[in-house]
């Protein structure tokens, strides 16, 4: 008996299976949505690069059959910055966890948004540090239990939507792994968007978060995502913070135009340099070059 080829095989490194994720983990769904988004988007896949830091979510860079870079904890964004600036033809997608991007990598996150680098950042927010076994992180809701908040979390979490919007991201959206169709669309829009786009993906971590907080199984979290989500496109990012057991505001909160880092650089340098910063070399200069 030959195993039938899965239609997504061309996108995945099947020879790396089985993956490391726990049963019920939402990261696989988010990865699948990324792959489907890329399939529909029709970008030349040889030029798509996935960069990650460290964590369960970061393993996606090694499961997709694309150029993948599994870098150091928190440093996916600056690594992606170097890749993108050195070769602007690449489509660079950062795919990592909330701890990776917002705790250890928090400074890079806000500066990349400020610069409006043409990157797509996908942040799997499972409210916890999954890979290290369930410690609290910068998105853990108040009063939630974790291995390092045995009496409940008393650090206010980041509202990532407000953080990146205030820092200058041009596309800011949040969905859950229950909202698969919406998620695929958001990924497509974010990738197609010129500039710094950020998609937060709420995802269950049964092993590190749900069990310790007596929130049931992954399927209970999916039910929660379904029952407690409210789609409010264009909502003020400052007003979409997440509370434990509270309502989840989803949608596309920011979608605007702003020159990218490279556009501003070209524009600024164009006054000083011809080639390669302006597409059209003036006739005068061209004539001069022909003579010399």
């Amino acid at each position, binding site marked *: 008996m030959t195993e039938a080829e899965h239609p997504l095989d061309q996108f995945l490194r099947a020879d790396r299976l089985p993956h490391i994720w726990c049963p019920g983990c939402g990261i696989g769904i988010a990865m699948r949505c990324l792959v489907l988004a890329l399939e529909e988007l029709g970008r030349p896949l040889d030029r798509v690069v996935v960069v990650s830091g460290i964590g369960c979510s970061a393993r996606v860079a*090694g499961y997709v059959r694309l150029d993948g870079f599994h870098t150091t904890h928190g440093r996916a964004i*600056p690594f992606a910055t170097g*890749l993108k600036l*050195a070769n602007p033809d*690449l489509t660079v997608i950062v795919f990592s966890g909330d701890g990776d991007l917002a705790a250890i990598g928090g400074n890079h996150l806000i500066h990349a948004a400020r610069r409006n680098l043409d990157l797509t950042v996908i942040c799997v927010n499972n409210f916890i540090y999954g890979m290290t076994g369930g410690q609290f992180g910068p998105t853990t809701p108040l009063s939630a239990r974790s291995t390092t908040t045995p009496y409940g979390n008393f650090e206010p979490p980041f509202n990532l939507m407000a953080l990146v919007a205030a820092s200058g991201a041009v596309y800011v959206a949040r969905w859950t792994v229950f909202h698969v169709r919406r998620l695929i669309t958001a990924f497509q829009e974010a990738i197609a968007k010129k500039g710094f786009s950020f998609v937060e993906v709420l995802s269950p971590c049964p092993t590190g978060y749900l069990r310790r907080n007596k929130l049931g199984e992954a399927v209970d979290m999916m039910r929660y995502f379904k029952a407690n989500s409210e789609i409010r496109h264009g909502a003020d990012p400052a007003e979409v913070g997440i509370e434990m057991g509270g309502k989840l505001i989803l949608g596309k909160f920011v979608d605007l135009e702003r020159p990218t880092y490279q556009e501003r650089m070209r524009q600024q340098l164009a006054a000083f340099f*011809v080639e390669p910063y302006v597409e059209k070399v003036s006739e005068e200069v061209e004539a001069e070059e022909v003579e010399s």
Partner: protein
Amino acid sequence: MKRGPAVLTGVHFFNGDVACAEGALAAGCRFFAGYPITPATEIAERMAERLPEVGGTFIQMEDEIASLSAVLGASWAGVKAMTATSGPGFSLMMENLGFGYMTETPCVIVNVQRGGPSTGLPTLVGQGDMMQARWGSHGDYETIVLAPSSAQEMFDLTVTAFNLSERYRLPVLILSDAVIGHITERVIIPPEEEITIVNRKKFTGPREAYLPYLPEEDLVPPMVAAGEGYRVYITGLTHDERGYPSTSPEVQERLVRRLAEKIWRNARDIIRLEERGIEDAEVVLVAYGISARVAYRAMELARAAGRRVGWLRLITVWPFPEERIRDLATRVRAFVVPELNLGQIVREVERCAAGRARTIPVLRPGGAVHDPREILTVIEEVFHD
């Protein structure tokens, strides 16, 4: 304004930092990411001015961790890339430095050393990062470290550093110091065609045939860049020849040994030394960077007093020239090692001398270079013993 030349052929008066930037451009560096810190800032400033002229990219990052990350990313985009810093920034780079060795990413990191520890002496000289350069990142690895002694060498050795990093696929470090970074001297930049440039071995075969970490005979695997269609997976985790993570002790053994062996086996090609008066020497001064220049003066004074003193300058500090020191140890009375730290490279000299010759440190924790007479006094003591 038109684009400027990448190689500024001619005779210049440059400080060491500017010479370093020009060396990088001449070597083909087209990406610089950095964060300002004295006494390395002029390298970034020069690159900010010059890179746009040659179609390259300069970015000032939010810190040194980000700077080295961006440099590694740029290298994987197929571009020669560099960053420059001083002690505190160098400390911040350590984790990503390890990532660079593990993923075999060519790039150049310049550390214009100042007095430490911590913020130490921002504008004053030090050589206290010699061991951090060797052992600063976690795990086992081998590195290449060059120590320039003049503004001219800031140019020359920056070219060499790029060539070695491309040749052996690893981050190469330049450990300069505040004096060499800031000293303004004559720098001769040769015509472009006289500058040797080495580029990384590229794989050009079919995608199915490519294994990103399958080494060739020289233990260096050919490289590809992101976007070339090879769909590579590059991870800092221990990985097999496909680049896939593995937790097997055998894979660890094979990979980590190869990373070390590619340097050990090629040590003769990598190591560069400068020697004077070694033939008849009873005492040999071993030094590097600015201290080597002071030591040279000490040798001249000793020779004038009729003492048979030689001088050995480490241009390559790591890998350490073990063979040469071992060999000399059998025929000299003592090594005298002046350093601007409380004893780092002197330990290596002592280890290689293995009791066959005395090893005498002359140490200062930075702030000012030695007075040659300090070194002379120590030399005299050997002859009086």
